[in-house]
């Protein structure tokens, strides 16, 4: 069995990841993990990621081996939905104490498995390793193996202690656990030419059920969904699927690719987020199935369903046009979600005043341009104050974003709707987009906004924090406008690479000083994009633009002397 560090290396070698293939051997070693910055990290750990990825398996007991913090502080906080078993929501932890830390927690873990089997008899037990038992050397693989044999029940070790990296690494390590111990260990009762796997879909708010009826109608069988509303037995027999869809986030790309390698199951990366995307995904699934021998008539049936559903969805969405006339939206979300939502918003008659492209790839940006026109206001990085200013100046009537920026909008008393992961509403498939538009309508026209914007009885004009923030913002802008040197400084101080803390100025200087033409070159000289690599696209743009004013610093220094 591979050691944890070997597994992590293996995960980073992921050839299915476009970003990864561009990396040098040395960088691959460092992995796709953002170097976590002490004092600046807010995301979850690898354990968190592993648990998120696997907990939606509903008939599995999820046992967290660690002190109380790991499970006690975080349990039952995810909105995945189950159509049957509830054991996945029951919280199990070994709650390690001091004695365990001194003498080792393996025995306690074994006994915990025994108690779970006796009291709850789940389909399987997933044991999650955490930092403390990893540090004291508890061998959960060995314990799980022993427990499996003793109790005649799959006990699966999930080796992703928090300190090995961030959440996305944890997702992948969870996938490795499935590949090593679960997938291919059982056989399905029967197979059909229409068996598919859906990988990386967690059924949050039950969103999978917005598209599953279409699968049912088309006769496509979801042999295994990893892991939303999943069952152990389904995952264990997932190797018999004919094709797989990897849902947009790259969270579990290793599972999809390795299943292709090992079992010859072709996969594609798709999304059910957005009308067009849903249609594309259904088409692609049909294509892969037909390639693998399903009757070609499937294509026609898929096209019929797509035509019907699209017509219904667009009709329902365009009904909002009169209500949304003149309303403007600011869309702050990463990656594919931006453009897949843009189309629906436009169909509803909403005007997009801007969309963030922070996590988007080059292709994403192209598609946004295609949809919104050349003038697309694409926001790279927006500080909370900038977002606020944009909303305030009536450039936008509503902000759509992830949960993290909600308080900017809400405290600024601006309509806001959550469209990312933590949302309470399901927005998948055709019906999901209509639902989204409905929710926008509800939020936009809620009179609560006028209420909460009224000044307090003791407020003097210009005295609210919002007014102050705006005044400060304007003062700064005026100062910069009046002082070109300062303005240039401010421009140059804008961060390019957050991981390594490299400013735009340093990148430009390096390009000029060393005549750089490639991202790799910039990285070599400035370290920019040497972390998560997400800013490589930004650097490419800087290189392409090339027209920034200024001379090489050395030349300037000489001139100054």
């Amino acid at each position, binding site marked *: 069995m591979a050691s944890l560090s070997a597994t992590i290396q293996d995960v980073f070698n992921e050839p299915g990841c476009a970003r990864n293939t561009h990396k040098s051997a040395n960088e691959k070693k460092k992995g796709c993990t953002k170097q976590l910055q002490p004092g600046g990290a807010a995301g979850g750990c690898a354990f968190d990621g592993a648990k998120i990825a696997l907990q939606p398996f509903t008939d599995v007991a999820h046992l967290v081996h660690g002190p109380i913090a790991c499970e006690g502080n975080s349990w039952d906080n995810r909105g995945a*939905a189950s*159509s049957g078993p509830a054991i996945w929501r029951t919280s199990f932890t070994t709650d390690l104490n001091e004695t365990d830390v001194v003498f080792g927690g393996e025995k306690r873990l074994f006994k915990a498995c025994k108690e779970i089997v006796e009291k709850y008899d789940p389909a399987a037990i997933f044991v999650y390793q955490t930092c403390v038992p990893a540090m004291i050397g508890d061998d959960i693989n060995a314990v799980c193996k022993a427990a499996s044999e003793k109790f005649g029940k799959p006990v699966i070790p999930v080796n992703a202690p928090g300190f090995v990296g961030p959440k996305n690494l944890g997702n992948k390590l969870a996938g490795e656990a499935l590949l090593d111990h679960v997938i291919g260990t059982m056989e399905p009762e029967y197979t*059909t*030419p*229409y068996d598919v796997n859906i990988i990386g879909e967690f059924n949050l*708010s*039950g969103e999978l*059920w*917005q598209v*599953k*009826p279409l699968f*049912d*109608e*088309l*006769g*496509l069988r979801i042999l295994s969904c990893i892991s939303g*509303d999943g069952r152990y037995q389904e995952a264990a027999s997932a190797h018999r699927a004919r094709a797989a869809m990897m849902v947009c986030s790259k969270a579990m790309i290793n599972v999809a690719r390795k299943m292709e390698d090992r079992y010859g199951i072709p996969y594609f990366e798709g999304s059910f987020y957005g009308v067009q995307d849903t249609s594309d995904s259904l088409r692609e699934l049909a294509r892969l199935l037909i390639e693998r021998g399903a*009757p070609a*008539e*499937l294509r026609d*049936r898929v096209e019929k*369903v797509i035509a019907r559903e699209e017509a*219904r969805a667009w009709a*329902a969405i365009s009904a909002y046009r009169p209500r949304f006339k003149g309303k403007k939206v600011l869309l702050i979300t990463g990656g594919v979600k931006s453009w897949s939502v843009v189309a629906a918003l436009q169909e509803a008659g909403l005007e997009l005043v801007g969309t963030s492209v922070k996590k988007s790839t080059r292709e994403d940006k192209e598609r946004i341009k295609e949809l919104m026109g050349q003038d697309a206001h694409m926001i790279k990085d927006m500080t909370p104050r900038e977002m606020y200013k944009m909303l305030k100046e009536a450039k936008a009537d509503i902000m759509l974003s992830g949960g993290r920026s909600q308080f900017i909008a*809400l*405290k600024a*008393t601006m309509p806001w709707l959550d469209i990312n992961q933590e949302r*309470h509403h*399901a927005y998948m*498939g*055709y*019906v999901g987009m*209509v639902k989204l538009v409905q929710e926008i309508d*509800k*939020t936009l026209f*809620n*009179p*609560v906004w*006028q*209420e*909460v914007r*009224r000044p*307090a*009885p*003791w407020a003097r004009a210009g005295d609210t924090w919002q007014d102050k923030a705006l005044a400060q913002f304007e003062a700064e802008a005026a100062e910069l406008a009046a002082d070109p040197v300062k303005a240039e400084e401010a421009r140059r101080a804008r961060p390019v690479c957050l991981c390594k803390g490299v400013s735009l100025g340093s990148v430009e200087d390096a390009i000029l000083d060393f005549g750089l033409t490639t991202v790799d070159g910039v990285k070599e000289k400035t370290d920019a994009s040497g972390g998560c690599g997400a800013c490589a696209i930004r650097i490419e743009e800087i290189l392409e633009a090339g027209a920034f004013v200024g001379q090489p610093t050395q030349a300037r220094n000489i001139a100054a002397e």
Partner: protein
Amino acid sequence: MAKVVVAKKSCAVNPLKMSQPIGAALAFMGLRGAMPLLHGSQGCTSFGLVLFVRHFKEAIPLQTTAMSEVATVLGGYENVEQAVLNIIKRAKPEIIGIASTGVTETKGDDVIGYIELIRKNHPELKNFPLVYVSTPDFKDAFQDGWEKAVTRLVEELVEPPANAARRDMSRVNVLPGSHLTPGDIEELRAIIEDFGLEPTFLPDLGGSLDGHIPDDFTPTTIGGVGVDEVATMGDAGWTIAIGAQMRAAAEAMRKKTGVPFRLFERLCGLAPNDELIAFLTGISGRPAPMKYRRQRGQLVDAMLDGHFHIGGRRLAIGAEPDLLHDVGSFLHEMGAHIEAAVTTTQSPSLERIPAEEVLIGDLEDLERLARDKGCDLLVTHSHGRQAAERLKIPFHRLGIPMFDRLGAGHKLSIGYRGTRDLVFQVANLLIEDHEEHHRVTPETWRNPWDDATAPVDGAAIATALAH
């Protein structure tokens, strides 16, 4: 805004409305040492008594002139006289408030004449406070009875100021409507006192029906505003009236004493309380205490958090006009749509309710409208529980009677703080309902379109093709 429609039914089903006399009786209960007396048959009193006991879970002082058939025909003077004498002998009240009922109004008893006669025949009662209000059951509703009783109390008990030029500007009269609970009254008292002002509430249910355990057995009210205090209300600097129903009483006060008044139609919500705080700042000359600045912030935050749940709800609400106007408008400001609004009686506040139509009707009307309009939140008094069950929608209890839950007297929905708590109550109710009844299932989106034609049975096709 709203069009007021009167139901054209002959048969009221599941009434929302309660009668005038007990509205008047409740107003009398806000005085110290009071014994409300209904001039009618004893059933009139006993039903009211049971209703209040079930609502407040307190001993309720309420007496009857016990009109018999014969007495009703011959006239009730003797019954009123005997009742007054008996009450004074047994209960030693400080005031007796007399309200007429349907029976005695139909007969046409001249109770004002009776009282004059009683005073003549019993000189020791010459100055004893006997306040009469005419409240036939067959007209108007609970809220109107309260309104008339308070107006009569002002007319009868308040004395014109000795020197109108020397008002005590730190004193404030408060005339609360019947929709304020004892808890609301206490909150309002605290807010006014925090501005260094000294409020006198008429009536003061906060003192009498707040659920305290009395030191001794007294058949009359314990706590409440004293007759002597009411007499001096003419010396106050201002009168604050709460609810459109209190305009008459406030005007009576001004007419008799010259005290100016300010009417607050609503005290639930952000803007209404901003107005109250601004007014109190103005008349007291003191800045708003820090406490209210914090509370306001908490309310704004609660509204932002709560709008996700309350926004878009289709509300069916049944309540007396002022309560309907106050809470209904606030829920509208939180994003709920008032699809069905039913009330008990006419009021100038009705047309200001943000709904297309307000129906003067009953709970059957409310239930029907709620069903027809697909409402998913019901707000009314406890008698709405059967409708809520049938409609299978979440139910928030509001108003009198609230007999199937504890703490009716302490429900708070005014002030920044009370409004904040109301947001949480309603939002939590909706969250709970969602968890219990609307969990998503694989079937939730099976046929999501209104025009849904039967989906093709693809599974059958696929299975057939597979073999």
